[in-house]
C-alpha cells in the first residue's frame, strides 16, 4: 500500500481528550497541505471505555482508511494493549511514563513532569507534531484556535507552554521516527467531515428549516446547521420526537421553507408515516438518514449500510422517491444540495443515505464552487388564475403547480386523504386512479435525473468491484492495490441507489469477467436491488456487518478467500 501514507491512532477513554488531539492534529495536517482520512471509533458512553481517533495522512490524495498503525498516541494502558498487534514495522507509540510500554517501538514521555499533569493532551500533541515533522507554529495555532473559544487566556498559555516543551523534548530525543514527506503543492483546503459537508451542502442550496431529534450519528448535521443558523437565517427546532420532526418539516415545507430532517435508522423508523404523507401531499422533503448498525439500538455509535431497503420502501402505499448515497465528504456536500433541489423539483421525499463512518470521517476538502450550486426556490410564485388554482391539477409529468399558502390569492389545500385536483377529499375511483397515476409519473422525472454510477478502470475488466455510498474510497483503494498487483480491475460507485437506470450500468456489469459487490451489511441489499431491477445476479458479495468500517485490506482478504 502507498508508502508515503502514515496511520496515526489516538486511543484512550472517552473524556480523556483524544478527540481534541485528533481534531487539532487533523486541522494542522490539512493546513500543512496533507490529505487525510479520519476514522472515529467510539463507544456509546460519555466517560471511560475505549475510543480511538485514527488519521491516515498522505501528501497525495487518499480516499480510505487503512489498517495498521504507524504512530500510536496512547492515553491509557488499554490502548497500548489493544493496538499492540496493529503496529506496522517502524511504528512508534507515544505514551506517558506511567504506562508500561514493553515494545522497543515505544516512546515514553513524562507527561506529568512537563505539565503539572494537567495539559496532557497538549503534551501528546507536541510530541506528535515533532515526530511528524510539523511546523510548531501551525500546531500552536491549531491548538489555540481549538481551545480559544472556550478557555481563558491563562489556560491557553499553559497549554501552549506544555505543547512547546513537549515539541522541543521530542525534537531533542528524536526517537528515530521518519517525519512525513513534504506535501505536494500546499493549497487551502477545508477540514470537514461527512456530516458537516452534508449540512453545508443543504445550507448552500437554500435550506431554511430543520427539525430533528438527537440521534447518533446524525446529530452533528443538525449541530452544524445550528452553528450557522443565525448567520444564515435558518429556523431549527429540536422536536419532541421523530414523528414531530418529520411532520414539522412537512408543515414548514408546505409553507415554502426548503426543509430537512436528520436522523438515524431507529428514528427514521418513526418517520415512515410522514414519508408517506410527503408522498400523497406532494410536499418536498429532504431526509438525511445516517446509518448505524441495527436492528433496534444495535451498535449506536458504529457503522453499517443496512437501511437501504428500509428507506426505499418506508411508508405505506406507493409513491416516488429518490435515494442519494454520497461516497466522500465532497459528495456529501454536492448530493445534499442536489437532493434538496430534487425534493422541490419532484415535490416529494428525497433521501441522503450516509453512515457513521463517513459522518465522522474528516478529510481535506477542496473549496466548493458555490456558483455551481443550484439554489432552491420553493413553489411557483406566479399563479396565473389564483381564483381557480388547483394544487393537484392533473399533469402528464406528474408535476402540478405548487403554490405557497399566503403567498398569493391562490388557496392551497394539501391532503393526506385521496383528493380531487382542488385538494378536497374524494372517494371516487376515477379520481383516485388519475391522482395516483399522476403522482407515480414523477418517477419519470427522477429517473431522468438519476445520477449514473461512476465507473473507473477498464471497460472489460477481469474484476469489477462495485460499491454504493460511503464505501467509494475503500473500493477505489482496494482496486488500486489489486491493479498494483497486476490485476485488471475496474470499480463502480453507485451514488444514487434509487431510481436505477439499467442502461447506466448494466453494460458495464455484463462486460466484466467477474462482478463483486461490496457492502457494509449482512445480506447484500444493493446487489439484491440490482437483480430486482435488471435481473442481473451479482454472484459474489463482500459483506461486513460487525459495525466497523470497510477497509481495502478487508476487501482484499475477502477476495482472497
Amino acid at each position, binding site marked *: 500500500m502507498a508508502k508515503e501514507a502514515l496511520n496515526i491512532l489516538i486511543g484512550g477513554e472517552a473524556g480523556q481528550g483524544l478527540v481534541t488531539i485528533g481534531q487539532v492534529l487533523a486541522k494542522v495536517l490539512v493546513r500543512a497541505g496533507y490529505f487525510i482520512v479520519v476514522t472515529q471509533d467510539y463507544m456509546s458512553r460519555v466517560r471511560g471505555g475505549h475510543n480511538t481517533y485514527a488519521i491516515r495522512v498522505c501528501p497525495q490524495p487518499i480516499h480510505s482508511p487503512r489498517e495498521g498503525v504507524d504512530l500510536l498516541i496512547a492515553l491509557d494502558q488499554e490502548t497500548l494493549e489493544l493496538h499492540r498487534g496493529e503496529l506496522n514495522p517502524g511504528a512508534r507509540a507515544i505514551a506517558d511514563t506511567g504506562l508500561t510500554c514493553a515494545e522497543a517501538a515505544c516512546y515514553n514521555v513524562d507527561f506529568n513532569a512537563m505539565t503539572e499533569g494537567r495539559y496532557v493532551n497538549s503534551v501528546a500533541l507536541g510530541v506528535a507534531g515533532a515526530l511528524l515533522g510539523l511546523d510548531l507554529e501551525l500546531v500552536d495555532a491549531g491548538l489555540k484556535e481549538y481551545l480559544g473559544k472556550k478557555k481563558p487566556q491563562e489556560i491557553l498559555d499553559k497549554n501552549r507552554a506544555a505543547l512547546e516543551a513537549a515539541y522541543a523534548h521530542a525534537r531533542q530525543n528524536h526517537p528515530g521516527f521518519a517525519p512525513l514527506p513534504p506535501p505536494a503543492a500546499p493549497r487551502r483546503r*477545508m477540514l470537514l467531515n461527512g456530516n458537516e459537508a452534508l449540512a453545508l451542502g443543504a445550507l448552500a442550496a437554500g435550506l431554511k428549516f430543520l*427539525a430533528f431529534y438527537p440521534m447518533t450519528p446524525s446529530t452533528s448535521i443538525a449541530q452544524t446547521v445550528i452553528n450557522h443558523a443565525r*448567520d*444564515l437565517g435558518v429556523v431549527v427546532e429540536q422536536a*419532541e420526537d421523530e414523528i414531530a420532526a418529520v411532520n*414539522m418539516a412537512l408543515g*414548514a415545507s408546505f409553507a415554502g421553507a426548503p426543509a430537512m430532517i436528520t436522523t438515524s435508522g431507529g428514528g427514521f423508523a418513526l418517520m415512515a408515516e410522514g414519508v408517506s404523507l410527503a408522498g400523497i401531499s406532494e410536499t418536498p422533503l429532504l431526509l438525511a438518514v445516517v446509518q448505524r448498525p441495527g436492528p433496534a439500538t444495535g451498535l449506536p455509535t458504529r457503522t453499517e449500510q443496512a437501511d437501504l431497503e428500509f428507506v426505499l420502501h418506508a411508508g405505506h402505499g406507493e409513491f416516488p422517491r429518490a435515494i442519494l448515497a454520497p461516497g466522500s465528504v465532497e459528495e456529501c456536500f454536492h448530493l445534499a444540495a442536489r437532493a434538496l433541489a430534487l425534493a422541490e423539483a419532484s415535490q416529494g421525499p428525497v433521501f441522503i443515505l450516509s453512515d457513521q463512518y463517513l459522518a465522522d470521517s474528516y478529510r481535506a476538502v477542496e473549496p466548493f464552487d*458555490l456558483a455551481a450550486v443550484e439554489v432552491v426556490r420553493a413553489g411557483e410564485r406566479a399563479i396565473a388564475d389564483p381564483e381557480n388554482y388547483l394544487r393537484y391539477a392533473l399533469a402528464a409529468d406528474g408535476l402540478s403547480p405548487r403554490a405557497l399558502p399566503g403567498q398569493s390569492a391562490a*388557496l392551497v389545500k394539501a391532503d393526506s*386523504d385521496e383528493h380531487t385536483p382542488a385538494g378536497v377529499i374524494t372517494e371516487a375511483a376515477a379520481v383516485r386512479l388519475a391522482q395516483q397515476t399522476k403522482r407515480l409519473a414523477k418517477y419519470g422525472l427522477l429517473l431522468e435525473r438519476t445520477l449514473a454510477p461512476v465507473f473507473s478502470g477498464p471497460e472489460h475488466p477481469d474484476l469489477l468491484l462495485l460499491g454504493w455510498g460511503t464505501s467509494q474510497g475503500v473500493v477505489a483503494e482496494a482496486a488500486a492495490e489489486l491493479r498494483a498487483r497486476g490485476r485488471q480491475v475496474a470499480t463502480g460507485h453507485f451514488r444514487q441507489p434509487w431510481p436505477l437506470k439499467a442502461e447506466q450500468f448494466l453494460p458495464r456489469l455484463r462486460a466484466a469477467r467477474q462482478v463483486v459487490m461490496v457492502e457494509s451489511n449482512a445480506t447484500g441489499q444493493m446487489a439484491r436491488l440490482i437483480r430486482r431491477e435488471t435481473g442481473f445476479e451479482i454472484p459474489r458479495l463482500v459483506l461486513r456487518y460487525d459495525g466497523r468500517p470497510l477497509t481495502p485490506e478487508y476487501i482484499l482478504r475477502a477476495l482472497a478467500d
Partner: protein
Amino acid sequence: MLDIATYGEFETAWCPGCGNHNLLKAMKKALAARDLAPKDLLLVGGIGQAAKTPQYLKANAFCGLHGRSLPAATGARLANPRLKVVVNSGDGCHYGEGGNHFLAALRRNIDLTVIVHDNQVYGLTKGQASPTSLEGFVTKTQPEGVWAAPFQPLAVAVLHRVSLVARGFTGEPDHLAGLLEQALAVEGLALVDVLQPCVSFNKINTFKWYQERVYHLDAGHDPTDFAAALAKAQEFGQRIPLGVIWRGDRAPYSSHFPPLAAGPLYDQEVDRAALEHVLEKYF
C-alpha cells in the same frame, strides 16, 4: 369584519345533528369577526371527524396525519409568520395519538389556535373510547367500561401557562364563536376544548348531558389567577364551566426565531456572503 360567506358553504360528511355543524358555524363567525382573509389563514387538521373541518372552509389547508396536526402546524407557523394557523382535530387526535405533541405544543406556547372537538369518543372509527372518555364509559370495544381516568387537557394546559385556555360547547354556538374570536386574537397557544356531542357513538355525554351541566364563567373568575384557573380547569362533573379559564403572558414561541422577523422564509434568499463567511471557518 368580513362576511361569513367568505369562507364558503360546503356539503359535509358529518351526521345530521352532530355538534360539528355548530362548531363550523361558530368558527366562520369568529374568523369573520377577526377579519381573517382566507389567503392569510392556514387550517391544519389531523384525521377524524373533527379533522375534516378544514375541508369545509375556504382557506389554505394542510390535512395531515392522525395525531400529527400540531407538529405540522408548528412547522408551517415557523416558516411563515404571516399565516394565522388554526388547528382542528378531535380528542383522539390531540390527546390520544398526538398526546406527546400536545404536551410539547403547550411547553412551547407555539402560536396556534388549537380547537379540540371533544366528543369523548372516537367518532370516525365508530365509537371506541377516547382519552377523555369517562371512567365506566361502555363501548363495543370497551364492553366492561373504560378503566383509565380521563385525560385533563385544560388543567395540563394551565399548568404549562399557555396564552389562553378555554372551554366551549357546540350547544351554545354564539358563546363559542365569542370564545373562538378571543382565541384567534391571542398570540401564543390558545386552546379551546369544545364539548361536541357525537350523536352516533356517544350516548352518554349527549347534548342534554352537557346542557344540564354547563355554566358560564362570569366576571367573578379572573383568568389571570393561576390557582383559580387550575381549579376551574379541573371542573368536569355535575358542573362544567364554559368560558376563558386562563390567560397567560408567556411569549409566543415564534417570537424567539430571528429569521421570522423578516417575514416568510420563502422570501429569504441565501445570503452568499454569509455563506462564504461560514465556509471560511472550516479552512
